[in-house]
């Protein structure tokens, strides 16, 4: 961690870490501790008095059907986004790994959605699925299916899932392709000589060998779907209709900034912090294992 050869202690290293540490203290640690503190308080409707209530906010949240529904919904949303975008990326990476010429061209053509902001991805899908003018509702109507995500909760959920998954395909594709290209060719050639066809080789050699990447991507996609899809939901559905797309992060925003329920919002923040810590620990523990294969 420290260099064997290093400079002696002086004022300088403190000055060097100062900007980072000051920003961390003011904008990270202090607000986070405020969130923890506020989660133990209940403020009356006019903001005149606050009362220290221990875990009442948490008890209330855990008994609140809206919150529990939103928890389950977020897990479903994350699982769907991860599954959809990872399997699509896996198929494409599997074929891209096969082509001799042009795999870099395909990579270029597939990675750019990474750069599209979530809210823009939401806007594009909203345009394609707009009930009055969108192209997909028009096509669906021809086969007799009525699309209106402003009224139908499952359709709204489907729309935010595909918008979120679309953006994440690029990332998953990049990591899957890199993982496949790092498998020694000799293993695959040996299997081919033994008579294993492409599908068999994929199922018994390639897929197991890239399983560390799959696990890594699972964590990354879960984090993405939990925390970075706010823009998509805000643009496409605003959590509706009837809360059918309100995820945990959207609910923190909505209860805090629109509903102005400080204690409740802070308690939700604290629960989210706990989730991030769990995910970070999983990610770090796993990365130690990834090196060994």
């Amino acid at each position: 961690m420290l260099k064997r050869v290093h400079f002696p202690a002086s004022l300088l290293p403190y000055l060097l870490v100062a900007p980072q540490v000051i920003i961390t203290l003011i904008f990270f640690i202090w607000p986070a501790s405020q969130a923890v503190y506020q989660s133990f308080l209940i403020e009356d409707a006019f903001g005149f008095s606050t009362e220290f209530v221990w875990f009442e906010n948490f008890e209330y949240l855990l008994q609140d059907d809206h919150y529990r529904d939103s928890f389950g919904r977020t897990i479903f949303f994350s699982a769907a986004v991860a599954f959809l975008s990872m399997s699509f990326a896996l198929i494409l990476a599997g074929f891209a790994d096969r082509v001799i010429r042009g795999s870099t061209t395909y990579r270029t053509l597939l990675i750019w959605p990474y750069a599209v902001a979530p809210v823009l991805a939401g806007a594009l899908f909203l345009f394609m699925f707009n009930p009055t003018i969108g192209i997909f509702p028009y096509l669906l109507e021809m086969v007799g299916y009525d699309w209106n995500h402003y009224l139908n909760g499952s359709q709204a959920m489907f729309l935010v899932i595909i918008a979120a998954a679309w953006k994440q395909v690029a990332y998953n594709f990049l990591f899957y392709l890199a993982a496949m290209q790092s498998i020694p060719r000799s293993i695959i050639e040996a299997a081919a000589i033994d008579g294993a066809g492409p599908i068999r080789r994929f199922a018994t050699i390639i897929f197991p060998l890239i399983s560390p990447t799959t696990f890594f991507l699972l964590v990354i996609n879960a984090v993405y779907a939990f925390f970075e899809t706010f823009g998509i939901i805000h643009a496409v559905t605003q959590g509706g209709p009837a809360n059918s797309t309100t995820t945990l992060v959207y609910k923190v925003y909505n209860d805090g900034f629109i509903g102005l329920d400080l204690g409740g919002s802070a308690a939700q923040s604290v629960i989210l912090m706990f989730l991030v810590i769990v995910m970070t620990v999983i990610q770090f523990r796993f990365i130690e294992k990834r090196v060994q294969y």
Partner: protein
Amino acid sequence: MVENRPLLSILAHIVLLLGVAIVALPVWITIVGASHEAERMLQTPIPMLPGDQFFVNLRQTLWGSGLEGTNTAPVWMMLMNSMIMALMIAIGKIAISLLSAFAIVYFKFPFRMGFFWMIFITLMLPVEVRILPTFEVIADLGMLNSYWGLTVPLIASATATFMFRQVFLTIPDEMLESARIDGAGPMRFFWDIVIPLSRTNIAALFVILFIYGWNQYLWPLLITTDTDMMTIVVSIKQMLEAAEQSPQWNIIMMTALLAMIPPIFVVIAMQKLFVQGLTETDK
């Protein structure tokens, strides 16, 4: 390729082209939408091929009054705000992370590990989980509606610090030994040896952080109430809301396109650095 199966290769290309088409479809429809007149975009089915109004729409979007019924700044101004925000975030993150990683790797001083863990903790506190209290801090400091308020709270970075720490640890000890024999002090060593040796890593990180900064949404949404400070990514949402009353999809799609182009250009033009940056920061 391990065996010669022409049919399978053809299938591979077909699947890949299909994949590219599916991925590109939303953007194709955006380009089509941005190249027609507003009236045309209200008749179903909407066109699937570009029209001839692209440059008319572009001019109207960039310099015109923008969308009717919205309270957004002119698009060129929002593009500039986004650019300033993205550059400030990327440069700020890189600068403070380089300095703190240098201190942690090259100095032995009390509380060194304490600082390291403090920086590590920021990894677990994304903006999304501490929205309200951070907003209060910014409001108390009078930083609402300013570039500082937009960027400074986002520039603390554990990932960048870790990445630079890894890079610095690979610099051979002999470098420092010889620099010291030649009489170089710490800052001289930092500028003349450490920075040049980590140049590609800095560039790779810059690509990732520029995209990260440009695409910020929740934070600018809260911090900017003044239309002059609005970023292009945030304005899309306002336009979508206005579209419910006066649908001008051609202008909205053109704005969306303009908001996407800079980060996409960076990814494609600097693909190698982008890939390096992505894989390095997630380790």
